[in-house]
């Protein structure tokens, strides 16, 4: 059940109705002290149904991780228990996601038969909810959060369906307090949430999915296409992954908002970044925040001298790359970004405010670097990535296939960025915004309906799963 499906619309409507019913005065009075627990149980059951829809066996795994996190939270004063809990969660992630990868890599290195691999089904969203579980355990241990007594609340935090399968990675300290507040399905929340959801849906099924047609073909057969076509496909992929992932994040944020809960923004116009450091403050913000707080700082951060800082940066980014998938291409991708971060750290001394022309130049250079890195992220293996890079710069002849959706997407992105730039309070760190309208006005309703109509009319109707589901 993905967000872009009729099944989800029916499911979500039912959840909204049930949550809305609990908020009716008569029902609320009847529930009395059990009001919150009932609401949270509804959401928890709905989340497990949502997750079990993929494969019912996954529910046992997430329950196991939840119980581990819950108990570790209650026993947080015991360092051994906390460390063991984190290790258990990491082992779960390691076995399901990385076991076969390491066995096969080891066997390939020593030219032995990889007969020791196990036929696992990779549980959807495992990378996300294991990180959330670790976030909870760590925050409680570090005193940032009180241990949650309610198992339902902890379970809901880990399994909350809007962000379960592809993030954002919500911090426990941001979400758990919301469960104690009077948050509910309201007209205002529905108005805002649905608009954010639709914006995300447009980015996913219109822009990202139409771009995927081109990207998939070129990356699958790079030797057929010309250098220009390959370059265009690389740029297209940069936009596809942005629209796909930020679109999903918007849908997660929007659906949570409908239910009355607030998630932080996960993408903030990453392609206007003037350097790689800024890029990681704008791209997959929840992941980069998690990596910084729980990995980079735990390794020592920048507190142990320059060399150690660079090592910590590299290690964080390599592991961050590996988190995305069990493939050496992600390791290379992470290493490239790590190296760029180190270089940036080495050479940046002052934070002068640059001219507009300089900022555009820096942003262009950063985008070129990021796009080249995306080649490794997208390619099935390193040799394919190298073939693509070689074809791109060799100017060999091939099929010239310029793709109109790339132009459309680029125009859309530029227009949205310009609007955001004009509206942004700080022009130095420009922030995006959700253009939410007042749906009480006829003019807004017309725009809204036209937008929905265009989303349905222009949607790509072939199969195109969310990119980040594979992580």
């Amino acid at each position, binding site marked *: 059940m993905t967000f872009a499906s009729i099944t989800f619309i029916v499911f979500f409507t039912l959840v909204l109705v049930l949550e809305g019913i609990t908020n009716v005065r008569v029902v609320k009075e009847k529930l009395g002290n059990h009001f919150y627990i009932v609401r949270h149980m509804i959401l928890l059951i709905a989340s497990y149904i949502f997750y079990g829809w993929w494969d019912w066996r996954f529910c046992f795994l997430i329950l196991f991780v939840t119980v581990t996190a819950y108990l570790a939270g209650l026993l947080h004063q015991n360092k051994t228990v906390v460390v063991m809990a984190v290790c258990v969660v990491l082992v779960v992630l390691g076995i399901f996601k990385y076991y076969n990868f390491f066995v096969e890599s080891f066997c390939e290195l020593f030219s032995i038969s990889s007969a020791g691999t196990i036929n696992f089904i990779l549980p959807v969203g495992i990378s996300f909810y294991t990180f959330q579980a670790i976030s909870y355990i760590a925050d409680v241990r570090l005193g940032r959060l009180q241990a949650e007594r309610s198992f339902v609340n902890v379970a809901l935090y880990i399994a909350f369906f809007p962000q379960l399968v592809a993030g954002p990675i919500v911090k426990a300290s941001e979400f758990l307090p919301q469960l104690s507040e009077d948050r509910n399905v309201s007209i205002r929340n529905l108005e805002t949430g649905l608009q954010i959801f639709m914006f995300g849906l447009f980015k996913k099924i219109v822009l990202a999915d*139409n771009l995927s*047609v*081109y990207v998939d*073909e070129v990356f*699958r*057969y*790079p*030797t*057929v*296409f*010309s250098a220009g076509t390959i370059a265009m496909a690389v740029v297209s992929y940069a936009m596809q992954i942005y629209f796909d992932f930020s679109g999903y994040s918007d849908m997660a944020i929007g659906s949570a908002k409908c239910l009355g809960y607030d998630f932080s923004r996960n993408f903030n116009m990453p392609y206007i970044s003037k350097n790689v450091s800024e890029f990681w403050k704008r791209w997959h913000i929840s992941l980069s925040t998690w990596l910084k707080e729980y990995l980079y700082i735990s390794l020592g951060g920048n507190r142990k001298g320059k060399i150690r800082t660079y090592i910590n940066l590299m290690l964080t980014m390599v592991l961050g790359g590996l988190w995305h998938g069990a493939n050496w291409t992600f390791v290379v991708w992470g290493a490239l970004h790590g190296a760029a971060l180190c270089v940036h750290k080495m050479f940046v001394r002052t934070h002068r405010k640059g001219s507009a022309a300089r900022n555009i130049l820096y942003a262009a250079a950063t985008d070129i670097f990021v796009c080249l890195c995306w080649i490794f992220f997208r390619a099935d293996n390193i040799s394919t990535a190298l073939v693509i890079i070689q074809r791109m710069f060799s100017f060999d*002849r*091939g*099929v*010239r*296939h*310029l*793709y*109109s*959706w790339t132009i459309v997407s680029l125009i859309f992105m530029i227009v949205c960025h310009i609007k955001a730039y004009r509206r942004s309070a700080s022009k130095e760190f420009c922030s995006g915004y959700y253009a939410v309208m007042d749906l*009480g*006005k*006829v003019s807004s*309703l*017309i725009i*809204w*309906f*036209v937008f929905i*109509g*265009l989303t*349905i*009319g222009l*949607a790509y*109707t*072939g*199969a195109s799963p969310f990119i980040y589901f594979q992580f």
Partner: protein
Amino acid sequence: MKNAKGVVIWLLKCFVAGIAAVAILSVFSLFYYNHGIRKTSETGATDYSWENQFHSVGYEGFAWGFNDADGYNNAYMLGREDIDILLMGSSHMNAYNVPQKSSVSYLLNQKMETSGAGYGVYNIGMEGHTFYMCSDNLKDALETYAPHKYVIIETRSVKLSMERMEEVLTGTRKRTPAFDSGLIYYMQKVPYFCLLHRQIRDMCDLNDASLADDNNDAAEASDNNDSGGALENQAPEYHTQLNRFMEMLAEEAGSYNVKLLVFYMPNTCINDDGTVGTLGNPQDIAEFAAACSDYGIEFLDMSDIFLENYRQNYELPFGFSNTEAGKGHLNRRGHELVADALFDKIMEIEGK
């Protein structure tokens, strides 16, 4: 009470906004997806033709144009008495995806004019019309348009279906309905509803059919569809049936004193090793060509022409700037190649 009134007012606003939105979306659809409304063909030359004059496509290629009075895509003005060559085929010959002046029929007309041959080409290519449908409609098409010299039929498959051939031979093929009456007819007059219908239909097809990630599978499925979905390979029976089919076609063409030319357009595909190929099986092509030859039907195979063009120019005959390269409908280059090949073939037949 106040809340209920507010809800009613808001619902009224939604209704008004909805009407306005459909109108705006319909204007958009008019230029993005407007094939027009199908109308049952009175002459039987095709199962149906188009009611609307203006047509547009923006989802697979970008093209707009006007149909003629009979509902076919002809930009070259030709009187009925001037028709020398009748062109029949599917959506490829319907040519909605390319500008009218880039279509096979227009280019062929131009070549005929500039070369001095002077044959007039009339196109009744129609969306959804397979080789079987064109064969079944051949008699009515020849009766209606009475070309003086040739009738050309496009085929996307050379491995024909026994069942489909039998239907045509026995006259039991059911004509495709046109939905030119009732509520569905009036709903089609709202362009956005047509686009919506297409999107929902495609999404449902995705849910029903297995996902064909591999290009070859998808193209094979398309060939199967053209051959009726049946790949019976019982050689003697198939050979007999094929001969009967060709005999029928030859007789019908012969009774109107026109030469029948069948041209085969295989799907192209990009192979895993990065080379480009076509999906036609050489044995099937040879068998089909032999059957045509036995009954005096001219046969043109576009396979080598498509591949040679790719080898020389790295161009694929299918696909557009808003679709996958090498898939879907004939693009401008594809139309040029087909028009050139048909012209050369006709000149060869004429001994010129």
